[in-house]
């Protein structure tokens, strides 16, 4: 019997999903559904937007208006949707390659522009759909089918990247810390502006196998032992934090949201005022 959560938020007829056994994406998709459920959002007003890759198949399983777009472009599609109807709750489901490689330019500009949307990154450190090529979040020295002698590039920290670009809400979650990650997604949805939750997924099939990370359970347990909640991390020294993954809010500021600001311009023009004069 499917759970109430699945019944209320998933397209049961399209399950089971296509992800490999042990993949973290199903857990993260469930976290998104839980966040929507916990907030009691009007399901008619939720639009889920995804790009291309393993992560982006999530859109098809979720029982909302869903749009599976082109590689890297989920954020600009979401921007158009939000601009067309600012009442909509626009949630972007994307992956590390989708959002920080081919879609990297859109990520930083959406963060800067602060259009209201919530971006959940299923970050598995690899291109899974194409069979295990290194991605912008594959750590230096690790392996992929296109980094057979070890990856030279340094990895992006996607949450920090978005924060650096001006994101008004940036957080990090993972697959193991389900409740914390769900809560971080909820906060992101409630935040008026651009929010991003960079969630460490696990890919035992490609990333795990190429890099001798053990089974899916081993990889999950590693998230348990290496994950530190932000409030604990504050009390830890940089040495203690080395090799740890901080789970929690990296940045949360109130900055004017784009569609609300644009509405002010429109209202000003309607009142015969120019240049947004009060």
């Amino acid at each position, binding site marked *: 019997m499917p759970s109430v959560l699945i019944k209320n938020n998933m397209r049961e007829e*399209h399950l089971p999903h296509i992800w490999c056994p042990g993949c973290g994406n199903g857990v993260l998709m469930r976290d998104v559904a839980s966040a929507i459920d916990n907030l009691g959002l009007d*399901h*008619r*007003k939720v*639009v889920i*937007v995804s790009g291309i890759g393993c992560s982006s198949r999530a*859109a*098809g399983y979720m*029982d*909302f*208006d*869903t*749009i*599976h*777009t*082109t590689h890297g*472009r989920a*954020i*600009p*599609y*979401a*921007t*158009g*949707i939000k*601009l*067309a*109807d600012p*009442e*909509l709750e626009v949630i972007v489901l994307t992956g590390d390659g989708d959002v920080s490689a081919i879609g990297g*330019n*859109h990520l*930083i*500009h959406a963060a800067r522009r602060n259009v209201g949307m919530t971006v959940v990154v299923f970050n598995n450190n690899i291109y899974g759909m194409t069979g295990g090529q290194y991605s912008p979040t594959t750590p230096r020295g690790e392996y992929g089918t296109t980094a057979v002698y070890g990856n030279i590039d340094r990895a992006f920290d996607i949450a920090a990247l978005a924060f650096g670009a001006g994101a008004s809400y940036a957080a990090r979650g993972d697959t193991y810390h389900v409740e914390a990650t769900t809560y971080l997604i909820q906060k992101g949805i409630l935040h008026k502006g651009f929010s991003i939750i960079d969630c460490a997924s696990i890919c035992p099939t490609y990333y795990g196998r190429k890099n001798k990370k053990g089974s899916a359970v081993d990889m999950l347990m590693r998230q348990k032992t290496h994950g530190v909640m932000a409030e604990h991390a504050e009390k830890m020294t940089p040495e203690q934090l080395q090799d740890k993954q901080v789970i929690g809010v990296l940045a949360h500021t109130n900055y004017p949201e784009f569609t609300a600001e*644009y509405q002010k*311009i*429109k209202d000003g*023009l309607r009142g015969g005022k120019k240049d947004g004069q009060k």
Partner: protein
Amino acid sequence: MGKAVLMQGNEACVEGALAAGMRLFAGYPITPSTEIAENCAVRLPLAGGTFIQMEDEIAGIAAVIGASAAGIKAMTATSGPGFSLKQENIGYACLTEIPCVVVDVQRSGPSTGLPTSPSQGDVMQARWGTHGDHPAIAVSPSSVKETYELIIRCFNLSEKYRTPVIFLMDEMIAHLREAVELPDMDSLEIEDRLTPLTAEKNPFPYLVKEGEWVPRLMPLGMGQHYHITGLIHDDTGFPTNSHEEADKLCRRLLDKIQKNKEDIITYDGYLLEDAEEVVVCYGGTARAALSAVDEARMEGIKAGMFRLITIWPFPEEQIFRLADKTGRILVAEHNDGQILLEVRRSAQGKVPVDFIGKINGDVITPEELLTKIEEEHYAKCADKK
């Protein structure tokens, strides 16, 4: 008719788009299309719409398709290099059947080319730019007034056939200023896409009703909870690997344009009745052709002009019939012979098809065209002797 106003081609494009119901523009600055973005930035918020300057060309078309999926009429505008960048997402709009209008103010290429000299070098790209077999509609204006009228037509065709429509302008018309009398808004025919009558869940949102060509898709955010994907999908909207379903979808996408060519294709004939030398042209080139044809007539040469308004789908039957009753065709275009190939294919060898073109950023003058008509005419007379 209102009073005449002096207007630039790019301005007329924006005014027409607003009249057609455009409420979102997303784009990126590129000359010679930039005035379209600038005018949208001024006019859209006044009309209750939204202008946004995106971070790149790809984001521009992506935001347009997103906005249209959410139910509003949207447009982007670009030139040569930007048109190349937009191609993948034009294909997405074809497959997902989300209406949108893409203005390409052609400039001299390839690559950065000769910014921003005139060209008509993107004609084949407008047909085949995005990968895979796909439908294409492209329309090209020859005057400022026609720019206003045809951008409305682009929106109408896009809404009706749920497909991206390319408005192939060229620098000559985009930067031309003419006195234009704009029609009354009440006199305009505006087409809006069909949507389902209720937002109830529908297991087959992509199912096409009997007697219709396209699915009635609901704007996002109405609660129908359907799925849109760039993967080949069946009537449920969800991906399928079935060859049968793939064939059904891809054939319908092509057929909805091919089988409605009568409705989509428009052209303009000038002095064709008794013409022995016919210039086939489109866009800004038609202005030189018109002068050349008049001059030729004054010299006693029976010249005429066949001006394409719809470029794609190509009016092959019309050209075939033209080839039946004229003596010679001269194709004039600002490229190295793109439409020439289509004209030759359609004429099926019935008449000689000659060519005059330029790819150096310069314009074809009426004198050059006249000389070419004369050469052909007198060569033909010599042949007869």
